[in-house]
């Protein structure tokens, strides 16, 4: 690449610029694989996707094929989905249930703990050759936080998942606390893509500034449904609320809902029935009894969380998406998105929630296709990066408390990115989030 820095982080003016070369140059993507995806904790899946013993899901995490499975001892395992014999992909189904996974090439079989259990003509192996040495490999580090499972491919990673997540754990709590048992991933996923650099989706996923323009048609729909969008989102101040630096490159925007209303704040379509409004109020009451008013207002307020590098949790009251995305090329990413819900809500609320989810986050809904279009048009625009190399993310840089329509959340991402890519340490700006202790959460 050229001699220009990846970012210009000027605290005097102030201004924050990002080099568009990071979006287009193949050499940068190679470095990202080595310095980011091979080093950071990466999201694998949610525990609720594995309801039964021997359930499995296969997916790629950080470019490598893995099996996410629940063993006969009820352990969650993450195994490398490659036969130890000759390196063939072992399990080819996307999901299923089975005690054993058998490689069709020569018939080696492995169980959901990754143990090599049998192969044809086992007697022909030499004495001293041990099946136990040919178990499925595992990522060097696997751990979970409140149902969210992660792996790290770096054997030298010394930071635990909990420490890595830093203050993002509060924001995961705000989601996980919504269920008395465990939040549940819906059956099915949105497997789509964007002709754009992966980092554009990290930016876009917590970008309050684009909502009123890019998603104008979704907002028109909300208003047409009879929901008072402006009243419930802070009037002309965008989506309301503020941005927070959660540490380690993680950031969020969010707001509390103090309305004590009978429907979700933010981007929900008006309910079809009074019953749904009644169910919602009862649910609110239940949460308030459990957690107190303040934490409940936050739970029901909503948040867009970006966990570095590529896990996004967007929970806007009317639904919650868990999304991850990987670069295949500098200008092409694959996106996988799931819906997360409290399983105990009534069918009436669940139906409304699913519908709002699709209509906002679905790749055939009334919002996400326009993000896909916007990001791909940015990528096309980056063809001119040698003429003007700079994207501008300076909004709110002079504020003590940047808003969700500012760009602190993107700057937090890019500073961590720059640190990992160049070794220059992050200089914290503002909006640093402090964890809420458990006593304050209970409202007592």
């Amino acid at each position, binding site marked *: 690449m050229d001699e220009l820095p990846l970012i210009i982080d000027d605290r005097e003016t102030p201004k924050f610029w990002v080099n568009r070369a990071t979006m287009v140059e193949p050499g940068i993507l190679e470095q990202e694989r080595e310095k980011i995806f091979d080093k950071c904790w990466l999201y694998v899946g949610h525990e609720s996707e594995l309801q039964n013993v021997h359930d499995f899901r296969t997916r790629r995490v950080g470019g490598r094929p893995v099996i996410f499975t629940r063993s006969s001892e009820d352990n969650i395992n993450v195994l490398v989905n490659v036969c130890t014999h000759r390196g063939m992909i072992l399990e080819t189904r*996307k999901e299923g249930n089975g005690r054993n996974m058998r490689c069709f090439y020569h018939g080696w079989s492995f169980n959901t703990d990754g143990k090599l259990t049998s192969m044809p003509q086992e007697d022909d192996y030499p004495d001293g050759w041990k099946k136990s040495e040919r178990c499925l490999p595992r990522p060097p580090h696997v751990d979970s936080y409140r149902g969210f499972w992660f792996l790290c491919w770096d054997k030298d990673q010394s930071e635990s998942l909990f420490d890595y997540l830093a203050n993002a754990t509060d924001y995961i709590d705000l989601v996980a606390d919504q269920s008395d048992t465990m939040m549940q991933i*819906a*059956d*099915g*996923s*949105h*497997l*789509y*893509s*964007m*002709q754009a650099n992966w980092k554009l989706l990290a930016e876009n996923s917590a970008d309050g500034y684009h909502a009123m323009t*890019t998603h*104008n*048609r979704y907002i*028109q*729909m909300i208003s*047409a*449904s009879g929901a008072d969008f402006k009243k419930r989102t802070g009037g002309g101040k965008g989506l309301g609320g503020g941005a927070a630096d959660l540490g380690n490159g993680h950031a969020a925007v969010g707001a509390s809902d103090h309305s004590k209303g009978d429907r979700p704040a933010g981007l929900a379509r008006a309910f079809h029935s009074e019953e749904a409004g009644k169910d919602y109020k009862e649910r609110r009451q239940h949460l308030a009894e459990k957690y107190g008013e303040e934490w409940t207002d936050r739970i029901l307020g909503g948040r867009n969380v970006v966990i570095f590098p590529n896990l996004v949790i967007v929970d806007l009251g009317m639904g919650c998406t868990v999304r991850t995305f990987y670069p295949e090329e500098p200008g*092409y990413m*694959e996106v996988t998105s*799931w*819906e997360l819900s409290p399983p105990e809500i009534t*069918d009436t609320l669940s*139906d409304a929630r*699913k*519908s709002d*989810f*699709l*209509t906002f986050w*679905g*790749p*055939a*809904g*009334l919002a*996400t*296709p*326009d993000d*896909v*279009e*916007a990001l*791909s048009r940015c990528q096309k625009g980056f063809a001119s990066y040698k003429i003007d190399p700079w994207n501008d993310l300076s909004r709110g840089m002079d504020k003590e408390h940047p808003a969700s329509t500012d760009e602190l959340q993107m700057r937090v991402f890019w500073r961590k990115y720059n640190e990992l890519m160049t070794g220059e340490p992050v200089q914290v700006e503002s909006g640093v989030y402090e964890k809420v202790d458990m006593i304050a959460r209970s409202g007592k």
Partner: protein
Amino acid sequence: MSTPKTDDPVAARMILRYEVENFLYREADLMDNWLLDDWLALWTEELLYLVPSTDKPEGNPREHLMFIQDDRFLLNQRVRSIMNGTAWAESPRSTLRRVISNVQVKSDDNGRLTVTSNFVVYRSQGSTLQVFPAHAEYLLERGGEANFLIRQKRVVLDLEELRPHGRVAFIL
């Protein structure tokens, strides 16, 4: 257009399929030519427009994550946003052409028909050509200017992932 009468059951089935095909061709013309207000008029007041996720082609809205589960209100909004130019993903509009085949009338319950078809949509925008293979199941009723009205339409994309397409913002 008047429908010829016949006592021959085979001829009656042929005539019915001919009528249904005419209706589906009319619908396709309206969708390809972005005459979506006219297209909306092909539906009954109460309606359901379903597109399941690519990984759950048998999916239903209660149990699975779908791509689309529009009622009358959402379908109106979908069309309105495409027509008023705020659906950026189709602004400017792409060039569409669909080819319909394998039309079958699966059942006829006193004029309430279950109809299936296969189709392919070619979508061209700039230098990009996308192909969307799909099949559809309709619940049709007699009525309207085009002989039938759509009560329910379920479109299943014959794609295992929405990749590299990325999104659907035109009408399937």
